[in-house]
C-alpha cells in the first residue's frame, strides 16, 4: 500500500509553544487527497489537529492552504500529483492564526462586506426577470465563480504591508457587481473602492491570479475597476 508523508505546520497561539512541524505517515489505496490525509491524521494520530472543511469538492472555499509551496485547496490536491516524498501542509501565509491550519478570516470578510457586495437596484423591478442577454451574462462568468477561499488575499503583498487594503477578493466582488448589466449602483459603490485602500493600492503584482485555486483572475477585475473609476470621475460615464 502506498504511503504519503505529511509535514504539517502546528501552532496553537494559546499554548505558549512556538510553531513546529509534525510528521505523519498516511497509508492509502489508489488515491488520496490532502484533505482526506488530514482527516486520517486527525482520526488516527492526533485528535487535536484542526483544519477547515465542508464540501470536499472544491466549491465551498473552506480548505485553502499552502501545500508544497503553493496555494491549493486541500480537497482538490491529490497526493499522487504532488511532487517530492513529503507533503508540506501549512496555513494560508500572512494571515492571523486561530490554530494549526485554521486562520482568522474575519478581516477578510469584513473587507468583503464594505464594498457592498450585493446587487444595487434603484428602479422598480419588473414582475418577471430583469432581462440580461447571454453576452451581458458572459461578463459575470469569471467573477461569480469566486468561492471566497482567501488564497488571493493571503498572497497579495499589498495586503501584507497595508492592513487596510481591501485585497483582491473584495475588489473582484465589487467588479462582479459593477459589470452586471442589472446593477444600478452608479456612484454608490464607487467611494468604497475608488480610494487608496481600494483599487489604487493594487500594484498589479498579480500574485492573486497566480494563487487562485479556481483559476480566476482578480487582477483583471481590479484593472477594470480602476478604469471604471477614472471614467466615472472624469467623464461622468456611469457604465
Amino acid at each position, binding site marked *: 500500500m502506498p504511503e504519503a508523508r505529511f509535514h504539517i505546520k502546528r501552532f496553537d497561539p494559546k499554548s505558549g509553544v512556538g510553531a513546529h512541524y509534525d510528521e505523519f505517515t498516511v497509508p492509502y489505496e*489508489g488515491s488520496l487527497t490532502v484533505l482526506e490525509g488530514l482527516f486520517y491524521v486527525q482520526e488516527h494520530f492526533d*485528535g487535536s489537529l484542526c483544519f477547515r*472543511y465542508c464540501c470536499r469538492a472544491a*466549491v465551498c472555499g473552506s480548505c485553502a492552504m499552502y501545500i508544497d509551496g503553493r496555494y491549493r485547496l486541500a480537497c482538490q490536491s491529490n497526493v499522487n500529483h504532488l511532487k517530492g516524498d513529503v507533503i508540506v501542509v501549512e496555513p494560508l501565509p500572512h494571515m492571523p492564526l486561530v490554530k494549526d491550519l485554521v486562520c482568522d478570516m474575519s478581516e477578510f470578510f469584513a473587507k468583503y462586506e464594505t464594498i457592498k457586495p450585493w446587487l444595487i437596484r434603484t428602479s422598480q423591478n419588473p414582475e418577471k426577470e430583469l432581462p440580461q442577454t*447571454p453576452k451581458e*451574462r458572459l461578463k459575470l462568468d469569471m467573477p461569480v465563480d469566486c*468561492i471566497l477561499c482567501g488564497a488571493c488575499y493571503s498572497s497579495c503583498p499589498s495586503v501584507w504591508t497595508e492592513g487596510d487594503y481591501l485585497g483582491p477578493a473584495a475588489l473582484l466582488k465589487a467588479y462582479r457587481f459593477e459589470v452586471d448589466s442589472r446593477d444600478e449602483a452608479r456612484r454608490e459603490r464607487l467611494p468604497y473602492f475608488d480610494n487608496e485602500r481600494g483599487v489604487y493600492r493594487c500594484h498589479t503584482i498579480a500574485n492573486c491570479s497566480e494563487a487562485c485555486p479556481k483559476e480566476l483572475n482578480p487582477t483583471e477585475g481590479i484593472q477594470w475597476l480602476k478604469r471604471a473609476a477614472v471614467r466615472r470621475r472624469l467623464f461622468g460615464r456611469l457604465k
Partner: protein
Amino acid sequence: MIYHQLIVVGGGLAGLRAAVEAKQEGIDVAVLSQVHPGRSHSGAAQGGINAALANNPDGADDTPAKHAFDTVKGSDYLADQDAAIEMTRDAPDVIYEMEHWGCPFSRYDDGRIAQRPFGGAGFPRTCYGADKTGHYLLHTLVERAYERGIKMYIEVFATQLIVEDGACKGVVAYDMINGGFLEFRADAVVMATGGAGRTYINTTNAIISTGGGMALAYRAGVPLKDMEFIQFHPTGLFTTNILMTEGCRGEGGYLINDQGERFMSKYAPTVMELAPRDITARAIQTEINEGRGIGGKQFVYLDLRHLGEQKIAERLPGIRDLAIHFEGVDPVTEPVPIVPSQHYTMGGIDTDMQGATPLPGFYAAGECACVSVHGANRLGGNSLLETIVFGRRAGAAASAYVKGKEGGGAPAAAGADPAAARMAASVEELAGRGTGEDAYAIRAEMTVTMKEHFGIFREQASMQAGLDKMLALKERVARVGLRHSGGVFNLDMMRTVELAGMIDVALATAAGALARTESRGSHARTDFPTRDDKDWLKHTLAYAGDAGPRLEYRPVTLGTFEPQERKY
C-alpha cells in the same frame, strides 16, 4: 448569554432565506452557522432549480399545476398534495425574487432565464446557472443577508436545543473560534441545518451534512418524518461519489453499460436517461449487480462525448473540472465512471406548510425538514426550490410567532448560563473517561452498515441485521472517550458529538425502512416489490425512545391528483 428574538441555525439557502424574511418583518434575527454561510452545502448544488416559468420553447405550455403534478407523481404519491401545490405556485415568484437580488442565471438570447430538462419533469423547467446553480443562489442570498445587516455567528456549532415550559427557547452552541460553549436564547428557533447524507459512506454530500439539526430536534422530542426515504443519485463519481449533475443527462448525456448499450431503454423506454432518480439509480445498480458494469466492475459510464467540447464548456464547465480533478477523466474525450450514491434525505423534522413543528417556537426548513413535498422520491431541482420557498415561509411564521410573544424579551435569569454549563460539563465528562470506544471506528462501521443494509435495494433479513448492528453501535457510542478536550476548533469533540446525532438519525431511517413493507419511490424492497396504497399511503413519524425509535403514522394529504402507477 446571547439573546435574539429569533435564532436561525444554519446558513444554507433555507436558513438565510428565513433570516432575510424575518429581518424584513422587523425581527431581531441572528444566524448561527458551523461554517461561513457562503460555504454551506447548498453551494455544491449544480443542476438547477425548478419553476414553471415557461421560458423554454419546448415548455411554453408549462404551468405550476403541471409542476405540482410532476412533483406528486415523482414522489410516488407520498407527497402532501396541498404542500406540493403551494410550493410550485410560489416557485416562479421566488425565482424572480432571487433574480432581482442578483442571481446570475444562464439566459436565452432574448434575455430570459434559461431552463433545461430534468428527470421526471414533463417540461424543461429547471432554471440554472451553468452547472453551479447552488453556488450562485447561495452567494446571492449571502449577499442579501449582508445587505440587510443580519447578525451572523460564524463557526458556531449548535449542540443542543433549549426547551423550557414546553417551548423552544434557544440553543447551546460551541464557539469554534474562541472555544467554550455559548448559550443562545431566543423566542423562537428555525432549524435549517441541511441533510444527513454522511450517515452513508457513499454520499455526494458535504462532510458537514451530518443531520445535526435533525438529531437536536429528535432528542428534544420532535418527530422525524419519512426518514426511510433516502435518495440515491444515479451519477456520482466512482471513486469519490462527487456528484455529476442530472444536468449532464438533461443536456443529453448517455448511460452506457459494459455491452456499450444505452440500458435505460429497458427501464424507461420513453424518457430514457431522463427518468426520475430512483428508477435510474435502480437501473444502474441492477446492471452492476447483474455483471454488466464496465469490465464487470462496480460502475457504468456516463458518456458526454457526443455533446462536444463547446456545449460542455458552456453548460457543464464545473462538471468537467470535477471529473478531471477528482476522477482523472476528461468528459470531452472519455466517458466518466459513475455509481449511484446517497444524495438526499427526503425525510426530516416534521413540519407543516409554514415550517412549524409540533414543538411551539421551533421551526424547520430546507433539507433537514420534511413538509412533505418530496414524498418517497424528490425530483431533481425541487429541493433548491424547497429551501427557498419554505425558508421564506418558516421565517415569516416564526416572525409572527415571535411578534405574538411581544414582551417576551430576554430572560431575566442571565449570568449562569445553566444549559451551556451543563453541556460543557458533559463534554468534560467525556474527556475525563480517557480512551473509551474509538468514535472514528464507530463512524466507519455505521456508514458502511447504512450503505449495505439500507441502500438502493432493501430486504427484510438484511435490514433486521442492519438495525441490530446500528443498535449495538448506539450502545458503543455512549462509551466513547474524547482524546482531546477543550480549546479552539476542537474537531475531536465536534465530530464525536456529531456522531452520536448521526446514529440517532440513521436509526430512524433504519427503523422506518424495516417497518415499511412495500416499495415506494426510493424505498425499494425486493421482498415487497410493489406499492401498497391500501396500507402504506401514510407518513412515518419516528420519535426518540429508549430502545431505538418509536414509530407512528399519519395519513398523506391527497385531494387533487389520484394515485396511479408511475410509468415513464
